[in-house]
């Protein structure tokens, strides 16, 4: 079935040979988005513009002049990237109705290569959260909640009300993007990763989540959370696809001065068979409190996999790991306090009706526009930035950041090529359980394994590894050296091949699209 094709090189070949047309592909994806609406993965579906882009792509294929491998490929973009003419909300009341006047650089790059933008995906408000549950458009549901694998293991065969309360979260904050890729509504999606926001939902939704090195991909047009840590993230169904997306997005952008100026050469991943030249580090501090025994076992099994294949596997130490979440908390809230200052109602976004004074209008606008999570972080951030607290908290956190980054440097200098660690502490939680704790507590718990890579600016990728006892995906992550994405992805691809993660069996989807899939089966067998 075309939609299930992880290897976009297969789809691209199909498009080139005319076995399927861009408009057919686009229409199928749009139909699937409609039939999976209950997932709440999309905030905006750009149906008209997507079909137009697909038609233009079709013309190019007819002439035998596709723009490249991404021409005609349906993709989705997290709703914190600016998209010209399309509403960009960041899942917040503050930006409801805001129509971007420009495209983020990464969006423009995708469009320039003929990709078809299906829509904007759901997230936690302003990308703050680890569940994709705190946006104004409601929570995103993990497609695996409706999979045969999960239902067999976890859902009692009784009333629909049990079904209603048995759905699990996607993780966050790029949950909508992860769900969109996982449910086959698009071939790839853009997310963002500040503390793990791409890797966390990737792990929970059984897809590949790549966090590139800070400075490799432009942040121009990505509504900023933490300027020194944000990166655009890539979500795909396989590592090869992530490499393709990376190839089309990476490189210096004059509009983002924090992108490095080195030439970036897109690469194709080798089909590595001999892993023995690699040294894999197992950071012992990532055996964090709360790590489920299941994931611990999978992590151990993965380490053995490498060992048995001849790679050098060593235990390493990143001694400041336990302070990384606190450090992140201070730096994140401080930068957030600064970045959120732009939302005052004057130039764009929500504006309160209060007219007494500028300050009262700003205050009311921000009270009405931001949710508790955002407001809480702004206030905390401002506290840490007060003159009397600046040295004690903000500068201190910056020093600890250096210690954390140095920990990684030391390990890589000692000869380790790639670090192997879990991405999350457990498999996806039931929504009803997840919301028992507040956002800050959850984020502090869930970010623990992912955010150190953001602090050090290193590339990291979560690869779906196996299903848990509940029938839900578990991912493991690889962390690499700065700007060594080729090496990182090569190892990730090798691992992906070894584990053979199962394809999701979505029953709801089958019910609605039986005809479509059958038709495809016959054309491609």
């Amino acid at each position, binding site marked *: 079935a075309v939609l299930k094709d992880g290897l976009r090189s297969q789809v691209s070949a199909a498009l080139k040979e005319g076995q399927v047309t861009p408009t057919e592909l686009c229409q199928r994806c749009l139909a699937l988005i409609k039939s999976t609406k209950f997932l709440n993965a999309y905030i905006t579906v750009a149906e008209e513009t997507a079909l137009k882009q697909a038609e233009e792509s079709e013309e190019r294929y007819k002439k035998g002049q596709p723009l490249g491998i991404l021409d005609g490929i349906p993709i989705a973009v997290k709703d914190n990237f600016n998209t010209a003419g399309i509403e960009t909300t960041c899942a917040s009341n503050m930006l409801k109705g*805001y*129509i971007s*006047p420009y495209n983020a650089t990464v969006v423009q790059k995708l469009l320039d290569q003929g990709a078809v933008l299906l829509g904007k995906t759901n997230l936690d408000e302003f990308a703050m959260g680890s569940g994709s549950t705190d946006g104004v458009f409601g929570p995103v549901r993990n497609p695996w909640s409706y999979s045969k694998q999960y239902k067999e293991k976890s859902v009692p065969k009784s009333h629909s009300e049990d079904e209603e309360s048995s759905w699990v979260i996607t993780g966050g904050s790029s949950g909508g993007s992860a769900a969109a890729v996982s449910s086959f509504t698009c071939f790839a999606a853009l997310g963002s990763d500040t503390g793990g926001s791409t890797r966390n939902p990737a792990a929970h939704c059984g897809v590949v989540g790549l966090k590139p090195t*800070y*400075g490799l991909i432009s942040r121009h047009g990505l509504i900023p959370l933490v300027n*020194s840590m944000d990166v655009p993230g890539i979500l795909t169904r396989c590592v090869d696809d992530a490499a393709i997306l990376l190839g089309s997005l990476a490189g*210096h952008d*004059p509009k983002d*001065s*924090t*992108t*490095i*100026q080195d030439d970036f050469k897109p690469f194709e991943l080798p089909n590595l068979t001999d892993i023995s030249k690699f040294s894999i580090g197992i950071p012992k501090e990532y055996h964090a409190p709360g790590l489920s025994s299941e994931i611990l076992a999978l992590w151990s099994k993965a380490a053995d996999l490498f060992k048995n294949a001849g790679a050098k596997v060593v235990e390493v130490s990143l001694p400041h790991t336990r*302070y990384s979440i*606190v450090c992140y*908390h*201070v730096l994140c809230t401080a930068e957030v306090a600064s970045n959120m200052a732009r939302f005052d109602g*004057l*130039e*764009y*976004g929500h*504006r309160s009706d*209060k*007219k*007494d*004074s*500028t*300050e*009262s*209008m700003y*205050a009311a606008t*921000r*009270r009405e526009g*931001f949710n*508790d999570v955002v*407001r*809480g972080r*702004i*206030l*905390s951030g*401002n*506290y*840490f930035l*007060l003159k009397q607290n600046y040295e004690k*908290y903000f*500068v*201190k*956190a*910056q*020093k*600890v*950041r*250096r*210690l954390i*980054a140095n920990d990684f440097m030391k390990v890589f200098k000692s000869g380790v090529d790639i670090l192997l660690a879990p991405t999350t502490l457990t498999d996806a939680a039931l929504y009803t359980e997840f919301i028992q704790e*507040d956002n*800050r507590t959850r984020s*502090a718990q869930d970010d623990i394994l992912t955010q150190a890579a953001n602090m050090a*600016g290193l590339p990291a990728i979560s690869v779906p590894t196996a299903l848990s006892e509940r029938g839900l995906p578990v991912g493991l992550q690889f962390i690499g050296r*700065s700007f060594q994405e080729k090496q990182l992805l090569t190892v990730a691809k090798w691992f992906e091949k070894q584990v053979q993660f199962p394809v999701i069996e979505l029953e709801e989807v089958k019910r609605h699209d039986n005809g479509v899939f059958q038709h495809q089966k016959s054309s491609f067998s």
Partner: protein
Amino acid sequence: QKVSVEVLDHLEHLALVDFRDLEGVERLQKAIQFADQLLEVNTDGVEPMDSVLEDRCLYLREDDVTEGNCTKDLLENAREKVEEYFLAPPGNIPLPKLEE
């Protein structure tokens, strides 16, 4: 060690965001408590890190005008405007002080 009302008031003025209720204030208290763990770490002789790219030169482009003339597009998203101005209510009127 609780945060004083003066500081809470000051924060609301700086952030232009209100605590709204006791829960908001408690949230701040918890955040500070959490951050206090940082004080345990020995950072003697360690320089603060602003950016992971500190060893590189920041890109500076030529001072040439390469884009602009988008006034109309930018004004589209503003709710209140007059001619080519963003319209704001009167300024220099301080917010009322926070009550206990």
